[in-house]
């Protein structure tokens, strides 16, 4: 299961709306345990695929290095990534699968339909190597802080 605060969940969906009709992308920082991946913070990343940003995303490795360094400073780990699918389903694509290499991490995809965030799904990359990796559907538990009631729809 992916555990994420309501505010972070809404923030990553809003990111997809902001970059529409292009794809957004970002990194999920947190901790993993037997119950799944727990997101403590999301970090927006730039999409380097300016040549085809409407249907591709790529996070520059040096940006990932810096985000991993940031995580280390917070005693957190990279536990997943998110991106959007403008006017496409919130389902992993062949490209998503081919380019997925972070086994054990959550890959969150938000469908953005005509500029509005629609369905958000998470997929856990499992396996041990490139040869046997696979995506599994992953439940999302949205944690609502009791001190700040949510506004709008989840």
């Amino acid at each position: 299961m992916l555990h994420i605060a309501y505010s972070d969940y809404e923030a990553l969906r809003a990111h997809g709306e902001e970059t529409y009709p292009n794809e957004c992308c970002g990194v999920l920082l947190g901790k993993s345990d037997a119950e799944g991946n727990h997101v403590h913070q999301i970090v927006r990343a730039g999409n380097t695929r300016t040549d085809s940003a409407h249907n591709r995303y790529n996070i520059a490795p040096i940006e990932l290095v810096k985000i991993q360094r940031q995580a280390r400073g917070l005693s957190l780990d990279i536990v997943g990534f998110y991106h959007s699918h403008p006017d496409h389903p919130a389902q992993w694509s062949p490209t998503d699968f081919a380019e997925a290499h972070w086994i054990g991490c959550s890959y969150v995809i938000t469908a953005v339909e005509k500029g509005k965030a629609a369905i958000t799904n998470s997929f856990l990359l499992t396996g041990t190597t490139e040869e046997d990796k696979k995506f599994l559907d992953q439940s999302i538990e949205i944690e609502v802080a009791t001190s700040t009631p949510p506004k709008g729809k989840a």
Partner: protein
Amino acid sequence: MNIHIPTPLRVYTAGAETVAVPGATVAEVFDHLTSQFPELKQQLFNAEGKLRSFVNVYLNDEDLRYLPSKEATTVASTDELTIIPSIAGGTPCCNCCPLL
């Protein structure tokens, strides 16, 4: 020098995020690393002994691929090596492309 291990590969370093490894060059450091943690070898290198295409290695903030001496680059004990798999993807190119 310290090598920073990405989340997916820590299962092969007994959970360690940072591993201290000796070596005068990047290649020597990798030799020591994979000697200490043998299961890392097939995760990092292909059958020809080359770094897998999706494995990025940074010496401090420099991409190893673009360093003139590449794996033969000399390193100091204060340098840091970061292993970072790539992250990319995207939607099907058009509506006619099936999803897997």
